[in-house]
């Protein structure tokens, strides 16, 4: 049978899904390659090869295309030596192969100053900040969310204030966090906590409320009382949805990382990125950003697989 690609609301075959997944990565990569390797697409700069008679040009200098051709025409008109050059992209857009090389060399290049960190050390710092912030937030946020979702009284007491607080941007607390907690790890963890916690309580409470009330009624007719309802019905009943929420929230925590790491003394992967941008090593900057993406995606995929094992009864329904 021929594969159908565009049938409304119908799942594709495994082969089709794999091809499309691959395609979703290849497509942006193809665009990037085109911009980098096809000289007549974009390439707004010219890399000077021979400065000819233009006094202020230098070899391997990047000049804007317009300026280059202006000088070229002027030189031709005055019959001087003409400059030569090849079309190039601005320095902030390195080609794919340069970034791939940087992915390796960024790890092997020794830090320029002795007190600076290797890339893997920066990454380890970042990951520990995220994990600590997220763990701390979950330790309080998840139980509170479940209670708020189960008991109206807890919900009424906590949610209005949390609803208000979640509109306050977490980075706004940066200066305060530094004043209270010092300049090292603590304020960064606090920012991740503030960014995650308030959303987390509301999301978990909503998930808890979505539990089928018929299940609670069934449990009551079977003799379950308050505490056993909570631990034997509510928590196992929402566990799989809760797990999915946590995966999404962990993604959000990453977005707060960059802000958190700029607070106090710059550290972790953000420090690496800003430092490399300062040295104009944009291939390293891209490499670092890619690494964050790869770490995020890999964690999520591992967690998704783990989820399938943890909740065998969910098979058949979409997680």
């Amino acid at each position, binding site marked *: 049978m021929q594969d159908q690609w565009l049938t409304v609301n119908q799942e594709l075959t495994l082969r089709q899904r794999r091809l499309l997944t691959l395609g979703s990565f290849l497509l942006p990569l193809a665009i990037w390659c085109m911009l980098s390797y096809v000289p007549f697409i974009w390439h707004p700069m010219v890399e000077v090869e021979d400065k000819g008679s233009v006094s202020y040009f230098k070899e391997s200098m990047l000049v804007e295309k317009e300026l280059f051709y202006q000088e070229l025409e002027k030189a031709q008109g005055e019959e001087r030596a003409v400059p030569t050059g090849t079309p190039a992209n601005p320095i902030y857009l390195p080609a794919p192969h340069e970034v791939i090389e940087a992915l390796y060399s960024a790890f092997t290049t020794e830090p320029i100053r002795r007190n600076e960190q290797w890339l893997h050390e920066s990454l380890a710092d970042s990951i520990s900040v995220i994990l600590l912030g997220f763990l701390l937030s979950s330790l309080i946020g998840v139980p509170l969310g479940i209670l708020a979702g189960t008991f109206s009284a807890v919900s009424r007491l906590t949610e209005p204030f949390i609803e208000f607080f979640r509109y306050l941007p977490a980075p706004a607390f940066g200066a305060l966090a530094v004043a209270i907690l010092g300049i090292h790890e603590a304020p960064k963890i606090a920012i991740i906590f503030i960014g995650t916690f308030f959303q987390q309580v509301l999301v978990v409470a909503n998930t808890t409320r979505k539990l089928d009330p*018929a*299940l609670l*009624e069934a*449990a009551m*007719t*079977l*003799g379950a009382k308050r505490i056993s309802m909570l631990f034997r019905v509510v928590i196992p009943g929402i566990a*799989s949805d809760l797990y999915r929420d946590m995966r999404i929230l962990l993604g959000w925590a990453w977005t707060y990382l960059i802000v958190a790491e700029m607070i106090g003394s710059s550290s972790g992967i953000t420090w690496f990125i800003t430092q490399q941008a300062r040295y104009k090593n944009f291939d390293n900057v891209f490499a670092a950003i890619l690494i964050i993406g790869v770490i995020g995606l890999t964690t999520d995929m591992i967690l998704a697989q783990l989820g399938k094992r943890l*909740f065998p*009864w969910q098979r058949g329904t979409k997680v």
Partner: protein
Amino acid sequence: MTHLELPSYLEQSEQVRSRFEKLKARPVLLKVSGLCKEFPSNDGPVSALKDLNFKTYRREFVCVIGPSGCGKSTLIRTLAGLEKQTQGEVLIDGQAVNGPGPDRGMVFQGYTLFPWLTVKRNVMFGLEMTGRSKGEADAEARQWIDLVGLTKFENSYPHQLSGGMKQRVAIARALATQPRILLMDEPFGALDAQTRAKMQNYLLDIWKNIDITILFITHDLDEAIYLADRILVLKAHPGEVQELIEVPVPHPRHAGQLLSPEFLATKARLEELIHPPSEDNVRLNGDHLNMVRMVSIDDAVSEVY
């Protein structure tokens, strides 16, 4: 409608009469007196049940039937303790009902099995809630699963079972705590006709063999007559008892009785009570819609007869 001369549904054979005499001599298990239930709404309270009174004897099978909106579900939910009545009393073995409890088992139309528990753990749930140890609960649950014929599936999860199997698990789960009465809210409503017939026979088998009183809500007249000793017919807006019919079809029941004169007489009476000739029927000229011909005369298939 039928050309058969039907006997009155009140006529009972000697066997049936003596059975009802014995039944009414049994102790009263459920007594509902003056039960009222009102729901608040924007236009003041709406009465769902009004002054309901009836008695159910031990090991009796009662079906509750009525037009939609007659408060059948409200009644059963109030009996289960999931809704609080506005007035009146529900007594089980002479004890007033106050909130849900394991002395009244409930089976819902939507199965309501715990999807994260296997069949066996689902059945064990009520047993553990009522204080049995894991070992005891395990052994008892196996017996109940065996009773509904699902031993092969005791380690399956609910999503792996068919609708009929799920409902059998739900029945086993409700019976496991050995309630005094089993409340069933249109339990077979979502099943196909064949499965439904099979389930009705399962249920009669179970009922025959254990000490359980059953109150069963349905909107299917055949199902009500086939299963019940007596049928409680409710009237809508507000829900009131219209009649308590003693089903004259002898026990044990079998599919051959579905066309017997007693069965048809009872059905005719129920039809009369539940679907009285209304204005709607009159206006539509009996059972016909006001149709105009919408097929061309010279069409290749111009007539269906």
